[in-house]
């Protein structure tokens, strides 16, 4: 039932993307309002489906929070991206970011719902995942990932806007905020992402300490999260202390997000302890 709703959410977010794009191409605010409405409705349905899935698992007698495998994590990833995006939209009163963020959410949902390798069945928790840390760890990590995802979208917007400094390709880019605002917003997203990633790594290592007997064992997932952390630490130092702005930061943020993606997906191709997210 819940996975049925969730597979439709994919198209809802795609629809939102379509209207955000229409808003930018046509330069008409009404399409933006429609897109935001679709997004909010999609998010509400999304939240409902996650709660339903949670309840379903209890009905099956294997009750647990829906954060236990790749399918559930993708669903939650997409949820955090849209939630965080809507907060940013509400705070900045600018909708152009939606055009770059909704495809990420829609792709994650599509991958979860339609990939033949990913099972949407509710499975019981293996002993290692039976811990109170599961919820905190997953929530902090995925809000971190989402913030970095939005930072990635902002970096793309920044670079697009930069290459069009004369404003010649007007129609499409006109509604995008100025580069200074994009840069500042990007910094704020990196700060949120960095804080959340740090919390995610800390909760993960507290958990590992009780499950695997060591707070740090250089497992590939741990190592890659550290790599991501190091990259964003470099971003923050280069901005706060060296005064880097703009293009360099945007490029570093894109490298950072590719590390996030590798931490999330790529690590599954390496052997390690952290194999719950494989399928």
């Amino acid at each position: 039932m819940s996975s049925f709703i969730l597979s439709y959410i994919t198209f809802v977010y795609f629809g939102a993307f379509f209207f955000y794009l229409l808003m930018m191409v046509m330069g008409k605010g009404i399409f933006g309002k429609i897109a935001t409405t679709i997004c909010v409705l999609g998010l509400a349905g999304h939240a409902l489906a996650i709660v339903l899935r949670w309840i379903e698992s209890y009905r099956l007698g294997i009750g647990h929070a829906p954060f236990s495998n790749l399918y559930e994590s993708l669903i939650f990833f997409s949820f955090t991206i849209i939630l965080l995006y809507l907060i940013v939209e509400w705070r900045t009163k600018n909708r152009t970011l939606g055009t770059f963020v909704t495809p990420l959410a829609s792709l994650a949902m599509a991958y979860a719902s339609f990939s033949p390798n990913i099972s949407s069945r509710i499975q019981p928790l293996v002993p290692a995942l039976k811990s109170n840390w599961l919820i905190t760890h997953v929530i902090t990590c995925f809000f971190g990932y989402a913030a970095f995802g939005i930072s990635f979208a902002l970096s793309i917007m920044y670079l697009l806007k930069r290459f069009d400094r004369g404003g010649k390709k007007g129609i499409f880019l006109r509604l995008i905020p100025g580069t200074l605002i994009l840069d500042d917003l990007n910094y704020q997203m990196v700060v949120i992402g960095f804080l959340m990633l740090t919390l995610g790594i800390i909760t993960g290592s507290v958990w590992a300490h009780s499950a695997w007997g060591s707070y740090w064992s250089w497992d590939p997932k741990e190592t890659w999260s550290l790599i991501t952390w190091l990259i964003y630490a470099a971003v923050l130092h280069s901005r706060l202390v060296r005064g880097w702005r703009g293009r360099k930061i945007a490029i570093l943020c894109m490298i950072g997000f590719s590390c996030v993606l590798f931490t999330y997906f790529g690590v599954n191709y390496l052997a390690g302890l952290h194999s719950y997210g494989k399928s």
Partner: protein
Amino acid sequence: MMPTLESRKHPNPVWRFFCSVRLTITLLIILALVSIVGTLIPQREASIAFARNLSPAALKIFFFLDLFNIYHAIWFRLLIGILALNLIICSINRFPGIWKRFNATPRPDRQKPFEDLPGELTFMVRGERATVAKDVEHAFRKKYRRVRDKASKDAYYMYGERGRLTHFGFYLIHLSILIILMGAIVGSIFGFEAYVNIVEGGEAGIVSSTNDMDRIPLGFTVRCDHFSVDFYDNGTPKEYRSDLTFLEKGKALMKASVLVNHPAHFRGITFYQADYGTVVGDRVRLKIIKTTSKAETSLLEVKKGDPTSLPGGDGTFEVADIQGDFMNMGPAVLIRVLPAPGQETSFWVFRDHEEIEKRYPGITQKFIKLNPSAFKPYTFILQSLDTRYYTGLQVAKDPGVPLVWTGCFLMVGGFFVTFFMSHRRVWVRITSEKKGVRISLAGNASKNPVGLERELVHLSRSLEQGLNEKEREA
């Protein structure tokens, strides 16, 4: 934080090298790259299969650079050491500048902050300037520290600030990293990581180190009273549980159940559920058929190594060996027969004899060593054998852990101070005009100027409201 802070030249070139943030960024990126390499090359135990495919020359390089154990290699630790040094020296180098800003006491009657003041931050009230000033100061002191004022002929000024300690926020983060590294060092010097397998009913007082197979005495013994594994209906494991007793000199001191995610602690050493398996016991049940004139069947329970007489009295036999899984064909026992007169014979008897015959027809006829009827006229059948669980425990002692958690806690605190709090400095100017008294607010912040502006607008509204109400009452 402006880039100018860094450009203050230090005479010592070594110091200059270590206090540059360029070095920090370079080190962070190098550490990231090296860590990537470490996840691509199989490490430690996993590296054996990989190493087999390497040429001897490549292997030499790999060993020289410790590439099969990157994260514990000297040069990797050296990199972290340089980063720590860089962090300490940067922090020291910055201190004078930060201290200056921490201690700065700007004049209350500065005019510059009031340039280009937005309309929301200035308003008029009725009343005497002196009494209005007193009321404003009263409200101002509640919100800001280090309040100082100055009165001149035509204006009254006030200055106050908040959050000047936030300049030291990044010290908390840097300190937290050093504390975590210290925790890791303490753990690697005074701690150990080991494992031990204990059969149900058995006990152990010595564990084997994971790194170098060293034997580490615990100073007490652990007994495994019971081990159980539960499965879900679909066959995936649900719970592993070991019931342990900790003993000293034969006296039971503590009992504990160890589950995944629920380790047991005893005398600073922690026991984790890590593995399990089965071992065979030393008793087997055999069926022996003597096929002479009429078939004679006897059932016997035999202990390993105990000579037993054959049912027909033709000699003795013993179970010389018991294997849980012999040649990948399941449980088997080695029977050694000593006939009253004649040569000793020995052969293996499988429990799953019929299945093996089906899979490899004729195998037991072909190899005399695998033939349960090798000693004529007897046929041995292995009916069952005892199996017992053993529990695989990970055993760790890490006195550095409290330091690591302290560091983590500090780091998160440091982030909040550094990223979400700021040093806010606020000026108030009160001047007399024809219609009444004008109050203006201005300020600056080390971070988040928008937040400060919101705070000032809020302050100015509440001041205006409060003063007007007071005026009406009067």
